[in-house]
């Protein structure tokens, strides 16, 4: 074990992830290829391939039963695939024995939906447990645990038992524990699903901070798009054990390809108002358009320019600009009169000329 220097400020150089060995940059932290896992007749993972880049936060999203839990448990060998390769820092862990996996797991932190703190241990002893397992001396692990508690803002709770903590505090302890042995990779298994929205935000901010400050690569699974949107760099959408869509978060958000992604996004993207959606028909005086646009200039007045450019008979129905990791992403709905016949065509052509995606959703009768 190297770099066990104890400092009050978490020192970035102590983390292998920030200071990789020469050539390590080309090695992804995690690389899965052709991974399959069945439980009886159910294929939880189906020939799945996925790469996790160093230092990124990858969000894996899917509905329950999509195989998320199985996938994340494969990354530290808690679950064994039937076939395929799982490379952690370039080393295939498939087929390793339990005792061969143990040293690898010590370099991978994990946080859980239900925190999984030891009720019989104090907060500081919980955080120190991975270090005890790694064979650190008592004084060293206590010092390191206190340093981590400082990082997550719970220094005053060191001697408390987990039962005395709130859900958010418990998860902070979980995060401190997961980071204590200086892992290069942090796995998050629905870490905010049991928390209220405000606490969720605080925990996500903490995870993002840790990712930026310490350079820890984070893989998180969730069923909430909001989580991915808040902290994810990239997102992979999982359905029936396969990755159906993958990419930069802002990109997937602005241009979701699959129906599943669109439906998962429904809570965090503007939707056609229900009273209009329910009246959509193949015939009517107004044409309803859905527009998606990603352009850095959106924040600098482009959005207003677009609206100015449209004829007065075109009505802005709903939507606006959203920022995903500093990327302005616009999604909005317009109604365009069907007569004169060329108007819809003109509006569509104009919007497409500025690289917007335009979709004719249907017709509605007046008044909208």
């Amino acid at each position: 074990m190297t770099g066990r220097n104890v400092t009050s400020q978490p020192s970035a150089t102590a983390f292998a992830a920030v200071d990789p060995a020469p050539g390590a940059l080309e090695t992804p932290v995690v690389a899965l290829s052709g991974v399959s896992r069945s439980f009886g007749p159910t294929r939880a993972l189906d020939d799945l391939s996925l790469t996790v880049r160093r230092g990124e936060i990858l969000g894996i999203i899917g509905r329950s039963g999509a195989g998320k839990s199985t996938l994340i448990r494969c990354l530290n060998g808690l679950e064994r695939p039937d076939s395929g390769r799982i490379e952690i820092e370039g080393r295939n862990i498939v087929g390793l024995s339990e005792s061969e996996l143990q040293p690898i797991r010590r370099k991978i932190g994990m946080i859980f939906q239900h925190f999984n703190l030891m009720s019989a241990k104090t907060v500081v002893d919980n955080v120190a447990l991975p270090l005890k397992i790694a064979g650190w001396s008592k004084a060293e692990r206590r010092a390191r645990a206190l340093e981590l508690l400082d990082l997550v803002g719970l220094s005053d709770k060191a001697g408390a038992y987990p039962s005395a903590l709130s859900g958010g505090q418990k998860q902070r302890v979980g995060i401190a524990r997961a980071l204590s042995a200086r892992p290069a990779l942090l796995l998050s298994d629905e870490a905010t699903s049991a928390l209220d929205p405000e606490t969720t935000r605080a925990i996500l901010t903490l995870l993002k901070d840790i990712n930026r400050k310490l350079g820890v690569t984070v893989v998180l699974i969730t069923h909430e798009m909001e989580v991915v949107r808040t902290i994810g760099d990239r997102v992979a959408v999982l359905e029936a054990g396969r990755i159906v869509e993958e990419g930069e978060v802002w990109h997937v958000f602005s241009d979701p390809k699959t129906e599943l992604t669109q439906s998962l996004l429904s809570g965090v993207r503007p939707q056609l108002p229900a009273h209009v959606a329910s009246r959509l028909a193949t015939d009517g005086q107004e044409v309803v358009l859905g527009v998606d646009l990603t352009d850095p200039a959106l924040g600098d007045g482009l959005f207003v320019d677009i609206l100015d450019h449209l004829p007065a008979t075109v009505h802005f129905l709903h939507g606006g600009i959203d920022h995903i990791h500093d990327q302005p992403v616009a999604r909005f709905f317009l109604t365009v009169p069907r007569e004169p016949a060329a108007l819809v065509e003109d509006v569509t052509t104009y919007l497409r000329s500025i690289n917007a995606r335009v979709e004719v959703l249907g017709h509605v009768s007046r008044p909208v």
Partner: protein
Amino acid sequence: MSPVLFNLLLQSIWETVVMTLASGVISFVAGLPLALILVATDRGGIAENFLVNRALGWVINGFRSVPFIILLVALIPLTRLLVGTSLGTAAAIVPLAIAAAPYYARVAEVSLREVDPGLIEAARAMGGNRWTIVREVLVPEALPGIVAGFTVTLVTLVGASAMAGAIGAGGLGDLAIRYGYQRFETGVMIAVVAVLIVLVSGIQWLGDRLVARLDHRA
């Protein structure tokens, strides 16, 4: 009560305490590992082994099926081998411990099973081996139940030690039968029952106090 009888009562209390504690400690030391083996070797356990699990389960069930009074007699040869005699307090400890160990194993097993599987998973994710899981998770997390179960076992042993009086083990049960019942010494009988109530209540009180101190679950 005459001074002779009073001395007899004191001696009987001492014998009962010795029998209960000695057999209790032995059954704890033997029963807890048995319980750990049962839980670890069970399906989905940390050292899954169907054969060991079944075999141990059968042996424990076998011992627990034999009525204690029969076990007392049946174990006389073993007791002679171990203690040199089949009479007296020391001799009674052998059948008491052999009866209580499988009982305690089952009681402790229940507590160990109640440990949240998520905690075991967390320890595995940290890179812990089986021994780590036993030492850092299973035993500490189940400790309140393990202690509460031990309290129950001790109280059961107080009762069982009275039965051991039937083979000359001495103790409060022996005193109650020979003096209180067979010689119609109602005073002795009342005294014995009173002492037993105090003894059992004391054990339960101590056990409950200890559990309350150990239990940090919400």
